[in-house]
Protein backbone atom coordinates (compact mmCIF):
# COMPACT_ATOMS: atom_id res chain seq x y z
CA UNK A 1 0.00 0.00 0.00
CA UNK A 2 1.15 3.53 -0.78
CA UNK A 3 1.34 6.27 1.90
CA UNK A 4 2.60 9.82 2.46
CA UNK A 5 5.23 9.69 5.20
CA UNK A 6 6.28 12.68 7.31
CA UNK A 7 8.89 12.83 10.08
CA UNK A 8 9.08 15.13 13.10
CA UNK A 9 9.82 15.45 16.78
CA UNK A 10 8.34 13.36 19.58
CA UNK A 11 8.98 13.53 23.33
CA UNK A 12 10.49 9.98 23.53
CA UNK A 13 12.83 10.81 20.62
CA UNK A 14 13.94 14.01 22.36
CA UNK A 15 14.33 12.32 25.74
CA UNK A 16 16.79 9.76 24.37
CA UNK A 17 18.69 12.25 22.19
CA UNK A 18 21.87 11.99 24.31
CA UNK A 19 21.63 8.18 24.15
CA UNK A 20 21.20 7.42 20.48
CA UNK A 21 22.54 3.89 20.77
CA UNK A 22 20.06 2.95 23.49
CA UNK A 23 17.09 0.65 23.01
CA UNK A 24 14.82 3.53 24.07
CA UNK A 25 16.04 5.72 21.21
CA UNK A 26 15.78 2.82 18.76
CA UNK A 27 12.18 2.17 19.86
CA UNK A 28 11.27 5.88 19.76
CA UNK A 29 12.63 6.47 16.26
CA UNK A 30 11.71 3.17 14.58
CA UNK A 31 7.98 3.39 15.37
CA UNK A 32 5.72 4.21 12.44
CA UNK A 33 2.37 5.78 13.37
CA UNK A 34 -0.50 4.66 11.16
CA UNK A 35 -4.30 4.97 11.16
CA UNK A 36 -6.08 1.80 12.44
CA UNK A 37 -8.13 1.50 9.21
CA UNK A 38 -4.93 1.46 7.13
CA UNK A 39 -3.37 -1.11 9.44
CA UNK A 40 -6.48 -3.28 9.12
CA UNK A 41 -6.22 -3.08 5.35
CA UNK A 42 -2.61 -4.25 5.60
CA UNK A 43 -3.90 -7.20 7.65
CA UNK A 44 -1.75 -6.24 10.63
CA UNK A 45 -2.09 -5.42 14.31
CA UNK A 46 -0.40 -2.61 16.20
CA UNK A 47 3.15 -3.69 17.02
CA UNK A 48 3.60 -5.78 13.87
CA UNK A 49 6.56 -4.96 11.66
CA UNK A 50 6.52 -3.49 8.17
CA UNK A 51 8.94 -2.92 5.33
CA UNK A 52 8.84 0.76 4.35
CA UNK A 53 10.30 1.57 0.94
CA UNK A 54 10.78 4.92 -0.81
CA UNK A 55 12.65 5.86 -3.98
CA UNK A 56 15.72 6.37 -1.77
CA UNK A 57 15.88 3.28 0.45
CA UNK A 58 14.10 0.75 2.57
CA UNK A 59 13.87 0.07 6.31
CA UNK A 60 11.98 -2.21 8.72
CA UNK A 61 9.81 -0.38 11.29
CA UNK A 62 7.31 -1.29 14.03
CA UNK A 63 3.71 -0.12 13.64
CA UNK A 64 1.75 1.86 16.24
CA UNK A 65 -1.85 2.85 15.60
CA UNK A 66 -3.20 6.34 16.14
CA UNK A 67 -6.36 8.09 15.04
CA UNK A 68 -4.53 11.43 15.21
CA UNK A 69 -3.30 10.89 11.68
CA UNK A 70 -5.38 10.83 8.50
CA UNK A 71 -5.76 7.65 6.48
CA UNK A 72 -3.18 7.46 3.71
CA UNK A 73 -0.61 9.25 5.90
CA UNK A 74 2.04 7.79 8.21
CA UNK A 75 4.35 9.48 10.72
CA UNK A 76 7.75 8.69 12.19
CA UNK A 77 10.02 10.45 14.69
CA UNK A 78 13.01 12.10 13.04
CA UNK A 79 16.21 10.08 13.22
CA UNK A 80 18.31 7.49 11.43
CA UNK A 81 15.31 5.29 10.53
CA UNK A 82 13.46 8.16 8.83
CA UNK A 83 16.68 9.12 7.07
CA UNK A 84 17.19 5.61 5.69
CA UNK A 85 14.27 6.41 3.34
CA UNK A 86 14.85 10.16 2.85
CA UNK A 87 16.51 11.47 -0.31
CA UNK A 88 19.26 14.11 -0.48
CA UNK A 89 17.72 16.20 -3.28
CA UNK A 90 16.91 19.73 -2.04
CA UNK A 91 15.23 21.47 -5.01
CA UNK A 92 18.17 23.95 -4.82
CA UNK A 93 17.06 25.14 -1.36
CA UNK A 94 19.47 23.19 0.85
CA UNK A 95 16.52 21.44 2.54
CA UNK A 96 15.73 17.79 1.71
CA UNK A 97 12.13 16.53 1.64
CA UNK A 98 11.73 15.31 5.22
CA UNK A 99 7.93 15.54 4.90
CA UNK A 100 5.42 14.04 2.49
CA UNK A 101 7.65 11.26 1.17
CA UNK A 102 5.82 8.66 -0.94
CA UNK A 103 6.42 5.21 0.55
CA UNK A 104 5.26 1.66 -0.09
CA UNK A 105 4.43 -0.32 3.05
CA UNK A 106 4.20 -4.10 3.26
CA UNK A 107 4.17 -6.59 6.15
CA UNK A 108 7.42 -8.31 7.12
CA UNK A 109 8.87 -10.58 9.78
CA UNK A 110 12.35 -9.12 9.34
CA UNK A 111 13.87 -7.58 12.48
CA UNK A 112 14.17 -3.83 13.03
CA UNK A 113 17.85 -2.90 12.54
CA UNK A 114 19.80 -1.15 15.31
CA UNK A 115 21.23 2.35 14.87
CA UNK A 116 24.71 0.78 14.57
CA UNK A 117 23.37 -1.56 11.84
CA UNK A 118 22.10 1.47 9.89
CA UNK A 119 25.43 3.28 10.27
CA UNK A 120 27.36 0.18 9.11
CA UNK A 121 25.13 -0.13 6.03
CA UNK A 122 26.41 3.31 4.93
CA UNK A 123 30.05 2.33 5.58
CA UNK A 124 30.49 3.28 9.26
CA UNK A 125 32.10 1.33 12.09
CA UNK A 126 30.27 0.74 15.38
CA UNK A 127 32.02 1.74 18.59
CA UNK A 128 31.86 -0.84 21.37
CA UNK A 129 32.56 0.30 24.89
Amino acid at each position, binding site marked *: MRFALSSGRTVPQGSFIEHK*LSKGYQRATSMIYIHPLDLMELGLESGDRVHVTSD*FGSVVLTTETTED*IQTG*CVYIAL*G*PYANAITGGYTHA*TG*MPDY*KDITVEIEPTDDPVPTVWDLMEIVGGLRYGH
Partner: protein
Amino acid sequence: MDIKDVPCPFCGCLCDDISVRLEDNRITGVENCCTLGNAKFLSKGRLQHPIMRRDGKWVEVTYEEAIDETARILSDAMRPLLYGWSGTIGEAQVVGVHLAEEIGALIDSTTSVCHNPSILAIQEVGHPGCTLGQVKNRADLVVYWGCNPIEAHPRHMSRYTTYADGYFIDNTATDRKVIVVDIRRSEGAKIADEFIQVKPGGDYLVLSALRAIVRGRGDVIPDSVAGVKKVQLQRVADLMMKAKFGAVFFGLGVTMSRGKYKNVRNAIELVSELNRKTKFTISAMRGHFNVYGFNEVLTWMAGYPFAVDFSRGIAFYNPGETTVIDLLERKEPDACLVVASDPGAHFPKSTIEHMAAIPTVQIDPCVNATTALCQVQIPVAITGIEAAGTAYRMDGVPIRMKKVLETEFPTDQEILERIVTRIREMRSHG
Protein backbone atom coordinates in the same frame (compact mmCIF):
# COMPACT_ATOMS: atom_id res chain seq x y z
CA MET B 1 23.55 22.94 47.09
CA ASP B 2 20.88 24.44 44.83
CA ILE B 3 21.72 26.71 41.89
CA LYS B 4 18.81 28.79 40.67
CA ASP B 5 18.05 30.39 37.30
CA VAL B 6 20.15 27.99 35.24
CA PRO B 7 19.38 28.24 31.49
CA CYS B 8 18.49 24.89 29.95
CA PRO B 9 20.82 23.78 27.11
CA PHE B 10 18.24 21.80 25.15
CA CYS B 11 15.86 23.69 22.87
CA GLY B 12 15.47 27.22 21.52
CA CYS B 13 13.19 28.23 24.43
CA LEU B 14 16.35 28.51 26.58
CA CYS B 15 14.22 28.44 29.75
CA ASP B 16 16.32 30.34 32.29
CA ASP B 17 14.39 29.51 35.46
CA ILE B 18 15.76 26.01 36.06
CA SER B 19 16.91 25.02 39.56
CA VAL B 20 19.63 22.41 39.78
CA ARG B 21 20.46 20.46 42.95
CA LEU B 22 24.11 19.42 43.33
CA GLU B 23 25.74 16.81 45.58
CA ASP B 24 29.46 16.02 45.27
CA ASN B 25 29.69 17.66 41.84
CA ARG B 26 26.76 15.58 40.58
CA ILE B 27 23.30 16.77 39.56
CA THR B 28 20.79 14.96 41.78
CA GLY B 29 17.67 16.98 41.07
CA VAL B 30 16.22 19.42 38.54
CA GLU B 31 13.21 21.71 39.00
CA ASN B 32 11.05 23.64 36.51
CA CYS B 33 12.48 21.73 33.56
CA CYS B 34 10.53 19.83 30.87
CA THR B 35 11.05 16.13 30.12
CA LEU B 36 13.60 16.90 27.41
CA GLY B 37 15.75 19.27 29.48
CA ASN B 38 15.44 17.01 32.53
CA ALA B 39 16.82 14.07 30.54
CA LYS B 40 19.81 16.18 29.46
CA PHE B 41 20.64 17.54 32.93
CA LEU B 42 20.39 14.05 34.46
CA SER B 43 22.03 12.23 31.56
CA LYS B 44 24.70 9.68 32.41
CA GLY B 45 27.20 8.00 30.12
CA ARG B 46 29.67 9.76 27.89
CA LEU B 47 32.81 9.10 25.91
CA GLN B 48 35.70 9.08 28.40
CA HIS B 49 38.72 9.40 26.07
CA PRO B 50 39.45 10.59 22.55
CA ILE B 51 39.14 7.66 20.13
CA MET B 52 40.62 7.03 16.71
CA ARG B 53 40.32 4.30 14.10
CA ARG B 54 43.48 2.23 13.49
CA ASP B 55 43.53 -0.82 11.21
CA GLY B 56 39.74 -0.98 11.17
CA LYS B 57 39.40 -0.85 14.97
CA TRP B 58 38.68 1.85 17.53
CA VAL B 59 41.55 2.67 19.89
CA GLU B 60 41.80 5.13 22.75
CA VAL B 61 44.30 7.95 22.16
CA THR B 62 45.47 11.07 23.98
CA TYR B 63 44.02 14.53 23.32
CA GLU B 64 47.40 15.46 21.79
CA GLU B 65 47.22 12.59 19.27
CA ALA B 66 43.57 13.29 18.40
CA ILE B 67 44.23 17.02 17.87
CA ASP B 68 47.34 16.26 15.77
CA GLU B 69 45.37 13.87 13.57
CA THR B 70 42.48 16.36 13.20
CA ALA B 71 44.89 19.16 12.26
CA ARG B 72 46.59 16.87 9.72
CA ILE B 73 43.24 15.84 8.16
CA LEU B 74 42.05 19.45 7.86
CA SER B 75 45.44 20.72 6.59
CA ASP B 76 45.63 18.06 3.90
CA ALA B 77 42.05 18.62 2.68
CA MET B 78 41.27 20.46 -0.56
CA ARG B 79 37.55 20.89 0.25
CA PRO B 80 37.04 20.72 4.03
CA LEU B 81 33.55 20.96 5.52
CA LEU B 82 32.94 22.28 9.06
CA TYR B 83 29.44 21.39 10.19
CA GLY B 84 27.20 21.50 13.28
CA TRP B 85 27.68 24.28 15.86
CA SER B 86 24.12 24.59 17.22
CA GLY B 87 24.80 22.74 20.47
CA THR B 88 27.68 24.92 21.53
CA ILE B 89 28.21 28.53 22.62
CA GLY B 90 28.95 31.59 20.52
CA GLU B 91 32.53 31.78 21.80
CA ALA B 92 33.29 28.34 20.28
CA GLN B 93 31.41 29.20 17.06
CA VAL B 94 33.67 32.26 16.63
CA VAL B 95 36.75 29.98 16.65
CA GLY B 96 35.00 27.71 14.13
CA VAL B 97 34.43 30.59 11.70
CA HIS B 98 38.05 31.72 12.04
CA LEU B 99 39.15 28.13 11.35
CA ALA B 100 36.93 27.96 8.26
CA GLU B 101 38.37 31.18 6.88
CA GLU B 102 41.92 30.12 7.60
CA ILE B 103 41.72 26.76 5.80
CA GLY B 104 39.27 27.86 3.07
CA ALA B 105 36.50 25.56 4.34
CA LEU B 106 32.77 25.55 3.85
CA ILE B 107 31.00 26.16 7.18
CA ASP B 108 27.35 25.35 7.76
CA SER B 109 25.13 24.63 10.75
CA THR B 110 22.06 22.56 11.58
CA THR B 111 20.09 25.62 10.38
CA SER B 112 20.57 24.14 6.93
CA VAL B 113 18.21 21.26 7.77
CA CYS B 114 15.74 23.12 10.00
CA HIS B 115 14.92 26.82 9.46
CA ASN B 116 17.14 27.54 6.46
CA PRO B 117 13.98 28.14 4.34
CA SER B 118 12.70 30.57 7.00
CA ILE B 119 15.89 32.62 6.64
CA LEU B 120 15.58 32.56 2.83
CA ALA B 121 12.00 33.81 3.11
CA ILE B 122 12.98 36.51 5.61
CA GLN B 123 15.74 37.64 3.21
CA GLU B 124 13.04 37.99 0.53
CA VAL B 125 10.26 39.76 2.42
CA GLY B 126 11.49 40.69 5.90
CA HIS B 127 10.55 39.50 9.36
CA PRO B 128 7.73 41.13 11.32
CA GLY B 129 8.86 39.46 14.56
CA CYS B 130 9.11 40.32 18.24
CA THR B 131 10.51 38.91 21.46
CA LEU B 132 8.70 36.19 23.38
CA GLY B 133 8.09 38.69 26.18
CA GLN B 134 5.87 40.74 23.87
CA VAL B 135 3.88 37.63 22.97
CA LYS B 136 3.52 36.62 26.61
CA ASN B 137 2.26 40.02 27.70
CA ARG B 138 0.17 41.08 24.70
CA ALA B 139 -0.93 38.25 22.39
CA ASP B 140 -4.63 37.37 22.59
CA LEU B 141 -4.30 34.99 19.64
CA VAL B 142 -1.51 32.48 19.08
CA VAL B 143 -1.16 30.42 15.92
CA TYR B 144 1.08 27.33 15.86
CA TRP B 145 1.57 26.41 12.20
CA GLY B 146 3.39 23.19 11.28
CA CYS B 147 4.93 22.85 14.73
CA ASN B 148 4.19 20.82 17.80
CA PRO B 149 5.31 22.78 20.85
CA ILE B 150 4.14 20.16 23.37
CA GLU B 151 6.64 17.63 21.98
CA ALA B 152 9.42 19.82 20.56
CA HIS B 153 9.38 22.88 22.90
CA PRO B 154 7.40 21.56 25.88
CA ARG B 155 7.44 24.77 27.96
CA HIS B 156 6.73 27.21 25.12
CA MET B 157 3.01 27.28 25.93
CA SER B 158 3.43 27.61 29.69
CA ARG B 159 6.16 30.27 29.58
CA TYR B 160 5.08 32.42 26.66
CA THR B 161 1.61 31.68 25.31
CA THR B 162 -1.42 29.57 26.24
CA TYR B 163 -0.80 29.10 29.96
CA ALA B 164 1.39 32.13 30.66
CA ASP B 165 0.10 35.11 32.61
CA GLY B 166 0.38 38.27 30.53
CA TYR B 167 0.61 41.89 31.70
CA PHE B 168 -2.14 43.00 29.31
CA ILE B 169 -4.13 39.72 29.45
CA ASP B 170 -6.67 39.54 32.28
CA ASN B 171 -7.40 35.83 32.08
CA THR B 172 -5.01 33.81 29.95
CA ALA B 173 -7.29 30.74 29.91
CA THR B 174 -10.25 32.60 28.40
CA ASP B 175 -8.74 35.69 26.77
CA ARG B 176 -6.05 33.98 24.73
CA LYS B 177 -7.19 31.87 21.77
CA VAL B 178 -5.03 29.23 20.11
CA ILE B 179 -5.09 28.01 16.51
CA VAL B 180 -3.08 24.95 15.47
CA VAL B 181 -2.41 24.00 11.85
CA ASP B 182 -0.91 20.56 11.31
CA ILE B 183 -1.20 17.42 9.20
CA ARG B 184 -1.95 15.34 12.31
CA ARG B 185 -3.96 15.91 15.46
CA SER B 186 -0.94 16.54 17.68
CA GLU B 187 -1.13 17.01 21.45
CA GLY B 188 -1.10 20.77 20.81
CA ALA B 189 -4.02 20.44 18.40
CA LYS B 190 -6.10 18.79 21.12
CA ILE B 191 -6.08 21.93 23.28
CA ALA B 192 -6.54 24.40 20.43
CA ASP B 193 -9.66 26.55 19.97
CA GLU B 194 -9.37 25.83 16.24
CA PHE B 195 -7.48 22.91 14.70
CA ILE B 196 -6.92 23.03 10.95
CA GLN B 197 -5.93 19.58 9.67
CA VAL B 198 -4.27 20.24 6.36
CA LYS B 199 -3.30 17.57 3.83
CA PRO B 200 0.49 16.98 3.55
CA GLY B 201 2.00 19.60 1.21
CA GLY B 202 -1.11 21.81 1.41
CA ASP B 203 0.24 24.67 3.59
CA TYR B 204 0.89 27.04 0.69
CA LEU B 205 -2.67 26.66 -0.57
CA VAL B 206 -4.22 27.22 2.86
CA LEU B 207 -2.03 30.28 3.48
CA SER B 208 -3.02 31.72 0.10
CA ALA B 209 -6.71 31.12 0.84
CA LEU B 210 -6.44 32.91 4.19
CA ARG B 211 -4.63 35.82 2.51
CA ALA B 212 -7.46 36.10 -0.02
CA ILE B 213 -10.12 36.12 2.72
CA VAL B 214 -8.22 38.74 4.76
CA ARG B 215 -7.97 40.81 1.55
CA GLY B 216 -11.75 40.60 1.17
CA ARG B 217 -11.67 38.14 -1.73
CA GLY B 218 -13.20 35.11 -0.04
CA ASP B 219 -15.42 34.75 -3.11
CA VAL B 220 -12.56 33.16 -5.08
CA ILE B 221 -11.99 30.37 -2.53
CA PRO B 222 -13.39 26.91 -3.41
CA ASP B 223 -15.43 24.91 -0.87
CA SER B 224 -12.37 22.99 0.27
CA VAL B 225 -8.65 23.87 0.19
CA ALA B 226 -6.06 21.10 0.85
CA GLY B 227 -8.63 19.20 2.91
CA VAL B 228 -9.79 22.29 4.88
CA LYS B 229 -13.39 23.47 4.52
CA LYS B 230 -13.98 27.06 3.40
CA VAL B 231 -16.27 27.75 6.38
CA GLN B 232 -13.42 26.91 8.75
CA LEU B 233 -11.00 29.13 6.82
CA GLN B 234 -13.46 32.00 7.08
CA ARG B 235 -13.89 31.38 10.81
CA VAL B 236 -10.12 31.34 11.33
CA ALA B 237 -9.60 34.51 9.25
CA ASP B 238 -12.26 36.25 11.36
CA LEU B 239 -10.51 35.18 14.56
CA MET B 240 -7.24 36.54 13.20
CA MET B 241 -8.70 39.88 12.10
CA LYS B 242 -10.54 40.37 15.40
CA ALA B 243 -7.41 39.73 17.49
CA LYS B 244 -5.77 42.75 19.13
CA PHE B 245 -2.33 41.17 18.93
CA GLY B 246 -1.73 37.91 17.07
CA ALA B 247 1.46 35.87 17.13
CA VAL B 248 2.23 33.16 14.56
CA PHE B 249 4.83 30.52 15.39
CA PHE B 250 5.84 28.14 12.65
CA GLY B 251 7.93 25.01 12.53
CA LEU B 252 9.44 22.42 10.28
CA GLY B 253 6.03 21.33 8.99
CA VAL B 254 6.22 24.49 6.90
CA THR B 255 9.96 24.61 6.09
CA MET B 256 10.42 20.95 5.16
CA SER B 257 7.26 20.50 3.09
CA ARG B 258 6.85 20.98 -0.62
CA GLY B 259 7.32 24.70 -1.38
CA LYS B 260 9.92 25.13 1.40
CA TYR B 261 10.81 28.85 1.72
CA LYS B 262 7.86 29.85 -0.45
CA ASN B 263 5.57 28.46 2.28
CA VAL B 264 7.30 30.65 4.87
CA ARG B 265 7.18 33.66 2.54
CA ASN B 266 3.45 33.12 2.13
CA ALA B 267 3.02 32.94 5.93
CA ILE B 268 4.99 36.19 6.37
CA GLU B 269 2.85 37.83 3.69
CA LEU B 270 -0.33 36.66 5.45
CA VAL B 271 1.01 38.39 8.56
CA SER B 272 1.67 41.53 6.48
CA GLU B 273 -1.94 41.44 5.26
CA LEU B 274 -3.18 41.07 8.84
CA ASN B 275 -1.05 44.04 9.93
CA ARG B 276 -3.21 46.25 7.71
CA LYS B 277 -6.10 45.46 10.05
CA THR B 278 -4.52 44.69 13.44
CA LYS B 279 -1.14 43.82 15.03
CA PHE B 280 0.44 40.49 14.05
CA THR B 281 3.92 39.00 14.36
CA ILE B 282 5.54 35.79 13.09
CA SER B 283 8.48 33.84 14.49
CA ALA B 284 10.28 30.55 13.87
CA MET B 285 10.33 27.80 16.50
CA ARG B 286 14.10 27.27 16.53
CA GLY B 287 15.25 23.81 17.62
CA HIS B 288 18.75 23.51 19.17
CA PHE B 289 19.39 25.80 22.12
CA ASN B 290 21.93 27.89 20.21
CA VAL B 291 21.06 27.36 16.55
CA TYR B 292 20.06 31.03 16.41
CA GLY B 293 23.42 31.98 17.92
CA PHE B 294 25.34 30.44 15.03
CA ASN B 295 23.32 32.55 12.59
CA GLU B 296 24.23 35.65 14.61
CA VAL B 297 27.92 34.78 14.88
CA LEU B 298 28.35 33.90 11.20
CA THR B 299 26.47 37.03 10.14
CA TRP B 300 28.72 39.28 12.24
CA MET B 301 31.84 37.59 10.93
CA ALA B 302 31.03 36.71 7.31
CA GLY B 303 27.88 38.65 6.45
CA TYR B 304 25.65 35.59 5.99
CA PRO B 305 23.77 33.44 8.52
CA PHE B 306 24.66 29.89 7.34
CA ALA B 307 26.20 27.92 4.43
CA VAL B 308 29.27 30.12 3.88
CA ASP B 309 32.00 28.86 1.54
CA PHE B 310 35.47 30.34 2.14
CA SER B 311 37.18 28.31 -0.62
CA ARG B 312 37.45 31.39 -2.88
CA GLY B 313 39.19 33.37 -0.14
CA ILE B 314 36.02 35.40 0.40
CA ALA B 315 32.70 34.59 2.10
CA PHE B 316 30.45 33.11 -0.60
CA TYR B 317 26.83 32.24 0.19
CA ASN B 318 24.51 30.50 -2.23
CA PRO B 319 21.96 28.21 -0.53
CA GLY B 320 21.21 25.22 -2.73
CA GLU B 321 24.89 25.13 -3.69
CA THR B 322 26.83 25.93 -0.50
CA THR B 323 24.37 24.17 1.84
CA VAL B 324 25.69 21.05 3.55
CA ILE B 325 23.24 18.54 2.06
CA ASP B 326 23.90 19.71 -1.51
CA LEU B 327 27.65 19.65 -0.91
CA LEU B 328 27.59 16.08 0.44
CA GLU B 329 25.16 14.95 -2.24
CA ARG B 330 27.67 16.16 -4.85
CA LYS B 331 30.37 14.26 -2.89
CA GLU B 332 32.61 17.34 -2.82
CA PRO B 333 34.10 17.40 0.70
CA ASP B 334 37.31 15.44 1.19
CA ALA B 335 37.31 15.98 4.98
CA CYS B 336 34.69 16.91 7.54
CA LEU B 337 34.73 18.29 11.08
CA VAL B 338 31.47 17.89 13.02
CA VAL B 339 30.99 19.98 16.17
CA ALA B 340 28.02 19.77 18.58
CA SER B 341 25.50 18.03 16.34
CA ASP B 342 24.73 14.54 15.01
CA PRO B 343 24.38 14.44 11.22
CA GLY B 344 24.67 10.62 11.31
CA ALA B 345 21.19 10.52 12.84
CA HIS B 346 19.69 13.47 10.98
CA PHE B 347 21.00 13.53 7.40
CA PRO B 348 19.62 11.51 4.48
CA LYS B 349 21.34 8.19 3.88
CA SER B 350 23.11 9.18 0.64
CA THR B 351 24.83 12.13 2.33
CA ILE B 352 26.16 10.20 5.34
CA GLU B 353 27.50 7.55 2.98
CA HIS B 354 29.90 10.22 1.77
CA MET B 355 30.78 11.28 5.33
CA ALA B 356 31.73 7.67 6.07
CA ALA B 357 33.91 7.56 2.93
CA ILE B 358 36.05 10.61 3.84
CA PRO B 359 38.08 11.42 6.98
CA THR B 360 35.48 12.77 9.40
CA VAL B 361 36.24 14.06 12.91
CA GLN B 362 33.66 14.71 15.60
CA ILE B 363 33.90 16.95 18.69
CA ASP B 364 31.09 15.82 21.02
CA PRO B 365 30.73 14.62 24.63
CA CYS B 366 28.73 11.50 23.73
CA VAL B 367 28.93 8.47 21.47
CA ASN B 368 26.24 8.98 18.85
CA ALA B 369 25.33 7.84 15.34
CA THR B 370 28.00 10.12 13.81
CA THR B 371 30.67 8.32 15.87
CA ALA B 372 30.38 5.36 13.47
CA LEU B 373 31.12 7.63 10.49
CA CYS B 374 34.24 9.17 12.06
CA GLN B 375 37.96 8.47 12.05
CA VAL B 376 38.46 10.49 15.24
CA GLN B 377 36.17 11.62 18.07
CA ILE B 378 37.22 14.10 20.75
CA PRO B 379 35.03 14.22 23.88
CA VAL B 380 34.44 17.61 25.49
CA ALA B 381 32.65 19.31 28.37
CA ILE B 382 28.86 19.57 28.12
CA THR B 383 28.04 23.14 27.16
CA GLY B 384 25.57 24.84 29.48
CA ILE B 385 26.23 22.34 32.28
CA GLU B 386 30.04 22.08 32.43
CA ALA B 387 30.95 25.12 30.31
CA ALA B 388 29.62 28.70 30.36
CA GLY B 389 29.11 31.03 27.41
CA THR B 390 26.60 32.89 25.25
CA ALA B 391 23.56 31.36 23.55
CA TYR B 392 20.69 33.01 21.67
CA ARG B 393 17.07 32.19 22.38
CA MET B 394 14.72 31.51 19.45
CA ASP B 395 13.66 35.19 19.44
CA GLY B 396 17.24 36.49 19.26
CA VAL B 397 17.67 37.33 22.95
CA PRO B 398 21.20 36.45 24.16
CA ILE B 399 21.37 34.48 27.41
CA ARG B 400 24.47 33.58 29.43
CA MET B 401 24.70 29.81 29.84
CA LYS B 402 26.02 28.70 33.23
CA LYS B 403 28.63 26.23 34.35
CA VAL B 404 27.16 24.22 37.23
CA LEU B 405 29.54 21.25 37.32
CA GLU B 406 33.33 21.11 37.48
CA THR B 407 34.93 18.87 34.86
CA GLU B 408 38.32 17.82 33.58
CA PHE B 409 37.02 17.60 30.02
CA PRO B 410 38.19 20.49 27.82
CA THR B 411 35.56 22.76 26.24
CA ASP B 412 34.68 22.85 22.52
CA GLN B 413 36.37 26.25 22.38
CA GLU B 414 39.64 24.96 23.88
CA ILE B 415 39.79 21.99 21.49
CA LEU B 416 39.05 24.20 18.45
CA GLU B 417 41.71 26.71 19.51
CA ARG B 418 44.26 23.90 19.88
CA ILE B 419 43.36 22.59 16.41
CA VAL B 420 43.83 26.08 14.90
CA THR B 421 47.20 26.47 16.68
CA ARG B 422 48.36 23.03 15.49
CA ILE B 423 47.33 23.75 11.88
CA ARG B 424 49.33 27.02 11.97
CA GLU B 425 52.37 25.14 13.34
CA MET B 426 52.10 22.50 10.60
CA ARG B 427 51.80 25.17 7.90
CA SER B 428 54.71 27.21 9.21
CA HIS B 429 56.84 24.07 8.98
CA GLY B 430 55.74 23.52 5.38
